[in-house]
C-alpha cells in the first residue's frame, strides 16, 4: 500500500512539474472561422458637406441627429436620419433669423440657441422649432453674450448658461445662469467649483448636466437649482484634458477619451470600456475630442478637431458583426515611454489600411514621472532584452531612450530598406541611419534641432562653444530675478542684456549636451579635450552669472502658443527671456516644429535662428526611432507598420514630438506655409535644417554624471579639474564594461 501511495505521489509531482511546460494547442483545436467570436468596432470618417463640422451633435426626439458646420463665415444646419451615416443640409432650420448665424446648439425638441454676429455686435437668440426667433434676455444679470458652446439644454424648458468672462455681475470669473424658455426669465445659480470649459463637454440627462471637472478628474453633475453631486471620483483618461460626454435614453453615460469610449451604467461607479481608442483617431494626441453622441442604432459619433490644422472631422464607430472580434494577426509595438504621439498616429493610419491586423502597444515605463524612473527603465529594458535574446519579443520597436546602437550592433533588428523609400526622406537626417551596404535597421520618424536665436545678424559668429562663451563674457551677467515677479517682464536695454537665459545647472547641461554629447563620449572613451571645453563653458557661465548666489524662483514651465493653422509651439524659459521678457540677447530651444519661427520674435522685430553652437557640427536629435525585431513572426506586417510611420498621412500631422523626416511633409506642409506668413524671422529654415548632419543622443550615464558635476561646479564645491576627474571616474566603469 505504501509503495503504491509513494508511486502515486511521485507520479503526481512529476505531472505537476510537467504542467509547468508551455502548453501546446491540441491538434484537434477548431480552426479559425469555426469558433472565433465575431463582431468588433469599426471607425469610419463621415464626409460632411458643406463646411467643417463643429460644436455638439444632438439626438432629436424624432430619432434624427442635428449638427452644425461652418464654411468660411456661413453656418449650416445638417440633419441625419440614419444614425450619422449620411447628412444633408436643412437651411429651413436657421431661416427664421434675420441676422447672420454664427454658432448654435440644439435642444432635443428642435429648439436652438443661436449666436448671430452683425459686425462687432453679437446677439443670442432662442429659435423655436416653429421658426419663431426671440432674443435671449438675461434680465441684466450679465453684460456678457453667452457662447452657445458653453450652454446646455437641461430639458425642453431649461437652458443652463455658463459664463466665461469677468462681466458676470456677481463678481466671480465664472458663473451660471438658468433660463426658462417658457417664461423668458433668467436666474443666477450658485457658482460651482469648475471652469466653464468643464461644462462644455457635458451632457444633459434626467434633469442633470453631467460634466468632467478636469482639475479633480471627477465626473460631476449639476441640476437646474444649482445642486451638485460627484458621480465618479476618477474618470479614466481625464488627465489628458481631452474628453466629451454623451448619454442614452436609459440614462447610461458615455465618455470618449484618448483610451476609447467608456460606458457608465445608470447609478454605476465602474466604467467599462466599449471601444478601444488605440488605432483610432481618438488615440492620436493631436486630435481633440469636441463632441460625442450615442445614436439610436447603438453606434457612436465623435467629432474631433486636429491641432495640426485641417479643421474637424466626424468619425462614426459602429459594431460590425461580420468581422471577427480579433484580427488573425496581432502586432506588438514596444516603446519605453508613451511620449511619442507619432506612434499612435502611425498605428491609427496602419489600422485604417489593414483593419484585420490587431495592434498591441506595450509601454515599458507607463509612468515616466514616477518615483524611480531609472529603476523602472532598467526593468523595462531587462524585460525587452530577455524577450529579444530568446528570439521573441515585440514586432516593432521604438528605441527612443535606449542605447539603440547596441540593438543594431547585436543584429536584433531587421533590414527595412525594402519598405522604406529613403528618397522621400530628408537626406541629411536619414543618411546617417543608412548603412554602407544600403541596409536600414532603424530610422527616425521625427527629429528635433537644438537652436539659438536672436536679433537679425546676432547669431552670425556663434559657430562654436568658444564663441558662445566669449559672447557670454562680453555681455552683462544675468541678475537674480524671481521669474514670477513683475521685474522679470521689464525689458532690459540692449547694453544691459545678458547673453543666455540660463538659470540652473540643468539648463547648462541641457544647453551643452544635445550639441556636444557625441563629441564628449566618442569611440567608447571620454574625450578629455571635448569634456574640458564643455565644462569650461559651464564654469564660465556659472561664475559670470554668479549662479551660486541665485536664490529667487528661476524657472517657469514654458508657454505654449499657436497661431492660426500653425502647430502648437512651446517656448521654455530659455526662450521667454529673449522673446517675451526681452532681457536676454539670445534665446535657445529645441525646435520640434518650424512654426517656432513664428513665435520667437520680440514685438515682430527682425530675428534669426541658427543651429546651437556645440562640439558636434550640425547636431540634431533623432526621435521616434523605428525598428523591426529581426525575429518577428510577422515580418511583412511589421515592416508595413514601420513604413506607415513615414507615410504622408502620419508625417503631415504634427504630433509635438518632432519635425517630419519626410521631405515633402516638411517642405510643402510647413516650410512653404511659414514662408507665406511673412514672419519677422528672416532665416531660411530649409537651409537651416539642411545643415543638420550629426545625430546626437545623450547617453544617460553621461548626462547623470555631467549634471552632478555641473551642479558641483555651479555651487563651487568642485573646480574644473575635480569635475573633469569626477566625470571620467563616473564613466570609467561604464566604459570598462564595454571594452
Amino acid at each position, binding site marked *: 500500500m505504501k509503495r503504491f501511495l509513494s508511486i502515486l505521489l511521485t507520479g503526481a509531482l512529476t505531472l505537476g512539474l*510537467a504542467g509547468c511546460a508551455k502548453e501546446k494547442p491540441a491538434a484537434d483545436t477548431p480552426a479559425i472561422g469555426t469558433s472565433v467570436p465575431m463582431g468588433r468596432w469599426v471607425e469610419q470618417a463621415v464626409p460632411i458637406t458643406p463646411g467643417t463640422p463643429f460644436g455638439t451633435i444632438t439626438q432629436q426626439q424624432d430619432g434624427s441627429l442635428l449638427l452644425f458646420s461652418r464654411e468660411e463665415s456661413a453656418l449650416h444646419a445638417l440633419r441625419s436620419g440614419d444614425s450619422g451615416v449620411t447628412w444633408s443640409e436643412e437651411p429651413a432650420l436657421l431661416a427664421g433669423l434675420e441676422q447672420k448665424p454664427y454658432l448654435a446648439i440644439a435642444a432635443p425638441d428642435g429648439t436652438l440657441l443661436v449666436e448671430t454676429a452683425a459686425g462687432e455686435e453679437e446677439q443670442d437668440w432662442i429659435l423655436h422649432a416653429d421658426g419663431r426667433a426671440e432674443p435671449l434676455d438675461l434680465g441684466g444679470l450679465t453684460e456678457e453674450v453667452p457662447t452657445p458652446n458653453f450652454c446646455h439644454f437641461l430639458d425642453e424648458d431649461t437652458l443652463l448658461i455658463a459664463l466665461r468672462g469677468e462681466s458676470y455681475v456677481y463678481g466671480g470669473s465664472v458663473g451660471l445662469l438658468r433660463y426658462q424658455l417658457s417664461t423668458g426669465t433668467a436666474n443666477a445659480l450658485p457658482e460651482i467649483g469648475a471652469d466653464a470649459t468643464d461644462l462644455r463637454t457635458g451632457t444633459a440627462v434626467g434633469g442633470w448636466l453631467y460634466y468632467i471637472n478636469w482639475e479633480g478628474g471627477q465626473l460631476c453633475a449639476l441640476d437646474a437649482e444649482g445642486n451638485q453631486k460627484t458621480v465618479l471620483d476618477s474618470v479614466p483618461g481625464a488627465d489628458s484634458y481631452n474628453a466629451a460626454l454623451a448619454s442614452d435614453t436609459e440614462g447610461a453615460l458615455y465618455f470618449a477619451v484618448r483610451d476609447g469610449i467608456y460606458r457608465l451604467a445608470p447609478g454605476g461607479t465602474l466604467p467599462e470600456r466599449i471601444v478601444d481608442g488605440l488605432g483610432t483617431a481618438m488615440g492620436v494626441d493631436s486630435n481633440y475630442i469636441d463632441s460625442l453622441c450615442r445614436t439610436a442604432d447603438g453606434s457612436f459619433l465623435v467629432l474631433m478637431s486636429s491641432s495640426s490644422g485641417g479643421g474637424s472631422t466626424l468619425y462614426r464607430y459602429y459594431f460590425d458583426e461580420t468581422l471577427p472580434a480579433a484580427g488573425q494577426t496581432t502586432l506588438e509595438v514596444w516603446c519605453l515611454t508613451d511620449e511619442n504621439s507619432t506612434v499612435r498616429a502611425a498605428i491609427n493610419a496602419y489600422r485604417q489600411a489593414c483593419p484585420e491586423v490587431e495592434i498591441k502597444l506595450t509601454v515599458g515605463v507607463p509612468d515616466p514621472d514616477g518615483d524611480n524612473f531609472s529603476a523602472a527603465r532598467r526593468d523595462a529594458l531587462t524585460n525587452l532584452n530577455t524577450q*529579444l535574446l530568446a528570439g521573441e519579443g515585440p514586432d516593432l520597436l521604438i528605441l527612443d531612450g535606449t542605447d539603440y546602437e547596441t540593438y543594431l550592433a547585436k543584429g536584433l533588428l531587421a533590414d527595412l530598406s525594402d519598405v522604406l523609400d529613403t528618397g522621400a526622406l530628408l537626406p541629411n537626417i536619414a543618411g546617417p541611419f543608412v548603412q554602407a551596404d544600403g541596409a536600414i535597421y532603424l530610422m527616425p520618424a521625427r527629429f528635433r534641432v537644438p537652436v539659438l536665436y536672436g536679433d537679425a545678424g546676432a547669431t552670425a559668429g556663434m559657430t562654436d562653444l568658444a564663441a558662445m562663451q566669449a559672447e557670454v563674457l562680453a555681455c552683462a551677467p544675468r541678475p537674480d530675478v524671481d521669474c514670477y515677479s513683475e521685474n522679470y517682464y521689464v525689458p532690459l536695454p540692449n547694453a544691459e542684456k545678458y547673453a543666455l537665459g540660463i538659470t540652473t545647472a540643468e539648463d547648462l547641461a541641457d544647453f551643452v549636451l544635445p550639441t556636444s554629447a557625441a563629441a564628449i563620449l566618442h569611440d567608447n572613451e571620454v574625450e578629455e579635450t571635448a569634456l574640458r571645453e564643455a565644462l569650461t563653458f559651464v564654469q564660465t557661465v556659472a561664475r559670470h552669472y554668479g549662479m551660486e548666489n541665485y536664490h529667487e524662483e528661476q524657472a517657469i514651465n514654458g508657454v505654449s502658443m499657436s497661431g492660426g493653422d500653425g502647430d502648437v509651439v512651446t517656448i521654455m524659459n530659455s526662450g521667454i527671456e529673449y522673446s517675451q521678457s526681452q532681457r536676454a540677447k539670445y534665446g535657445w530651444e529645441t525646435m520640434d516644429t518650424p512654426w517656432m519661427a513664428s513665435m520667437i520674435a520680440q514685438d515682430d522685430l527682425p530675428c534669426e535662428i541658427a543651429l546651437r553652437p556645440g562640439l558636434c557640427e550640425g547636431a540634431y536629435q533623432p526621435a521616434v526611432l523605428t525598428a523591426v525585431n529581426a525575429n518577428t513572426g510577422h515580418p511583412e506586417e511589421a515592416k508595413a507598420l514601420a513604413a506607415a510611420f513615414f507615410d504622408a498621412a502620419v508625417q503631415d500631422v504634427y504630433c509635438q514630438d518632432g519635425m517630419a523626416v519626410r521631405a515633402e511633409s516638411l517642405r510643402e506642409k510647413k516650410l512653404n506655409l511659414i514662408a507665406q506668413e511673412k514672419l519677422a524671422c528672416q532665416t531660411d529654415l530649409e537651409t537651416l535644417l539642411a545643415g543638420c548632419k550629426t545625430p546626437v543622443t545623450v547617453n544617460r550615464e553621461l548626462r547623470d554624471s555631467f549634471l552632478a558635476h555641473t551642479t558641483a561646479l555651479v555651487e563651487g564645491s568642485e573646480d574644473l579639474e575635480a569635475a573633469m576627474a569626477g566625470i571620467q571616474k563616473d564613466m570609467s566603469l561604464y566604459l570598462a564594461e564595454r571594452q
Partner: protein
Amino acid sequence: MKKQTLTAWLFLAPSLTGVTVFVLLPFAETVRRSFCDALGKRFVGMANYRAVLENRAFRLAAGNTARFIAVCVPLLLLLSLLLALALRRQKIYKTTFLLPMAVPVASIVLLWRVLFAQNGLLNTWLHTKVDFMGSEAAFWVLIATYLWKNVGYDSLLWSGGLDAIPEELYEAAAVDGAGALRSFMAITLPSLGPTLGMTAVLSLLNTFKVFREAYLVAGAYPHDSIYLLQHLFNNWFLALELPRLTAAAVLAAAVLLALLFPIWRGGKP
C-alpha cells in the same frame, strides 16, 4: 535491492526533473552560448572567455566579489559560532535571530540611506562628514549589512550542530580532567564538521544576495569597492553582451564549484 533502488529513483524523480529543467539545462545552454555570438548561432571558440578575462570591469568585479567572500564568510562563521555558544542555553533569543532576514530589502535600503548618507544619522552622531557610500567605507558598510543579516541564521545552524553532540562525551572528558577549552577543541570542533560544511555553503551563497541592497542604494554603477559581479552581469545584460555574460557566468560557476567541492568533501564523516 533492485526494488529499493527503483523506489529511491522514483522518489528522486520529481526533484531531479525540476533541477534538470530549471537548473541543469539552462546552465548547459549558458555554457553553449558562452562559445557563441550574441544570437547564439555562430561558434566563436574561446573569444568570449578571452574578452571577459581581459575586461577591466570583470577583473574589478571578480576581485571585489572574491574580497567580499574572503572577508565575510570566515567572519560570519566565527561570529555566528560565538553567538551560538554564548546563547546556547537562551532559547528565547533564537527566534529573534531570524528577524533581520524578515526585514524587507526596501526597509533596509531606507535605513541605509538614513544612516549612511553624508548628512545621515551616523555622521551626525559621530560629528563626521564621511561619504560612506562614495568611498572605500562602502565596502565595510556592505560587510556590516551582510553580517547583521546572516549572523542570527548561521548561529541557529550552529546551535543545531551543537545540540547533536552527545552530552556523554563532555561528561567523560570532564572525568578525564579536560577543561572547557580542551573539550571545545577535542569534542565540539571536530563534531561540528558536517555543520561547518553546510553553514559555509549557505553563507557563501548568501553573499550573492547582498547585491540587492548594494544595487538599490548605490545604483548600477556604485563606488568601485562594492562593484560586484552581479552589477556587471546586470549591466552586460542591458547592453546585450550575452556572450561575455555567459562566459563570465560559467567562469564564476567554475570558481564556486572549485570552492564548494572541498567543503563537501571535508564535511563528510
